[in-house]
């Protein structure tokens, strides 16, 4: 129990330090880097949300884009200042019921998450009876349906024109706090008996059922929690961009998060964080491959827009070949490991496979 207390203290200290870094980043760092940090944090939330269903409960779901869209549109519809709405909805006027309702961002984020979770509950009831590839296809389909409904509900969502004039959220501190709270809640959930039940279902459904674990209840719970945090992440994403558009939520964006969790480790909380940072920052900083390069007066022919993705894909393949279970696998970066490393930095090389007892 003493160890638990120490871990909680260390976590709190780390959070305070990181918050300090966020404050520093907010005032001292240029806006390009700040934007990348913000994106990393948001992607970390959505990545972890996807990891709940895919990595922990073992249900291969590809619906994240749809749930993100719900959260983003909740922010888009309700946080645009009332006096600017006529400019936004210039083609079709906004529905008269909604036109005067303004909700602050924090509440819109929560409501977006709740709505996403409700939709997930409705979808989950029929869909979660499926397994494996079939579940993936069905959730993918539902996420497209959500997007198409949004595109066509013009008086609410402004349809294909998207919603502009969302007060841009360019605040690392705010996004950091939301991310931290999300991570804390999800970690507590996954370390509780619910988390164990998720893992049991992932490992062996029949054995889990024979232990008295309700399959349907837990699958649906995982799916709804996952959608809730995807909705919150989507809301932050919309607020960060300052505009939402159905094209932002094509199913291809789901693959970004699949990439994050496969790279970070399916079933690892800290892995989702690392995956998000590597994928987001990696994609940004590899942009140098997209620009023409001249070495000693000779233009290197391959450097042109598009090369970035080639390099990124090669890096990914290398990653998957050498770390088949992602960077973290199902392991976590715990304080024990960090402290052990600080005490005996080379122990890992001398003796392999030593585990705490």
């Amino acid at each position, binding site marked *: 129990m003493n160890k638990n207390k120490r871990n909680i203290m260390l976590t709190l200290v780390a959070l305070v330090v990181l918050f300090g870094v966020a404050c520093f980043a907010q005032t001292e760092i240029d806006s390009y880097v700040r934007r990348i940090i913000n994106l990393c944090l948001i992607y970390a939330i959505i990545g972890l949300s996807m990891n709940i269903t895919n990595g922990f409960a073992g249900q291969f779901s590809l619906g994240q884009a749809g749930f993100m869209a719900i959260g983003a549109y909740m922010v888009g519809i309700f946080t645009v200042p009332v006096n600017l709405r006529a400019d936004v909805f210039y083609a079709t006027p906004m529905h008269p019921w909604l036109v005067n309702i303004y909700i602050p961002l924090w509440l819109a984020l929560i409501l977006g998450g709740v709505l996403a979770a409700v939709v997930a509950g409705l979808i989950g009831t029929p869909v979660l009876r499926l397994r494996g590839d079939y579940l993936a296809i069905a959730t993918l389909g539902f996420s497209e349906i959500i997007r198409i409904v949004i595109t066509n509900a013009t008086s609410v969502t402004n349809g294909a024109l998207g919603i502009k004039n969302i007060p841009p959220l360019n605040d690392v501190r705010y996004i950091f706090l939301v991310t931290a709270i999300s991570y804390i809640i999800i970690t507590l959930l996954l370390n509780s*008996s619910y988390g*164990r*039940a998720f*893992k*049991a279902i*992932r*490992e*062996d459904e*029949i*054995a*889990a*059922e*024979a*232990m*008295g*674990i*309700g399959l349907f209840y837990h699958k649906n719970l995982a799916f709804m929690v996952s959608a809730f945090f995807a909705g919150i992440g989507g809301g932050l994403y919309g607020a960060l961009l300052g505009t939402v558009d159905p094209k932002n939520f094509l199913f291809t964006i789901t693959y970004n998060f699949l990439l994050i969790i496969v790279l970070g480790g399916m*079933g690892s909380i800290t892995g989702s964080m690392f995956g998000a940072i590597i994928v987001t920052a990696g994609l940004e900083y590899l942009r140098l491959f997209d620009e023409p390069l001249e070495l000693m007066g000779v233009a290197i022919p391959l450097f042109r827009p598009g090369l970035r993705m080639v390099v990124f894909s090669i890096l990914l393949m290398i990653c998957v070949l050498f770390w088949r279970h992602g960077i973290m696998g*199902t392991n976590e970066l715990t304080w024990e490991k960090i402290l052990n490393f600080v005490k005996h930095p080379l122990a890992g090389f001398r003796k392999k496979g030593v*585990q*705490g*007892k």
Partner: protein
Amino acid sequence: MLKVRDLVVAYGGIEALKGISLDVPDGKIVTLIGANGAGKSTLLRSIIGLVKVKSGSVEYNGDTLTGLNSQQIVSKGLTLVPEGRRVFPNLTVLENLRIGAYMRKDEEGIAADIKRIYEIFPRLEERNWQMAGTLSGGEQQMLALGRALMSRPKLMMMDEPSLGLAPLVIKEIFNIIRSINENGTTVLLVEQNANMALKVAHHAYVLETGRIMMEGSGKELLENEEIKEAYLGKKKK
């Protein structure tokens, strides 16, 4: 304790159990032997609620179990050690045990039971932090037994605990089964290893293609000529 009456279970149109009746009295070891496809596993799976029953009834201490889901049945004190062990391979030994106690909420009792199980199976304590998938077959079977014990079952059903294990390990497992029973847990054991199973059984049933062909005490069946020939591999003189 457990009463099964005229149980019929069908997969699609094919009946796997064609009307089975049996009793498991309190505190005893009851064994079910039979060849592949006789319906032994189906019987256990239908008792625990993993398979739907077509007709007939299962009663446990006077409560009807047919129609309940596995959660409700497990909470009544039944548990199944599934065929082929089915431990959770990528979870640690400790996590496996804790999942066994999933239906319980008394943290102190759970901690005490984990300790008790480590006393019964010292080998599991040594491997506390190891992934269950890395254990040997015998250790996995021990873990499956320990996991089932974590729910504090009154009736423990085991599906072929000797499957794929070395003879020495089988002996050890059967000794443990006997001691579990002596500590007050009723056991319903399904086995192909008829010799070992009949030796520990107080009462035994022989199942053939969905029907019960014979019953008697373990000793009676061990000495029965037909059983000897069909299941024990000894020739009639």
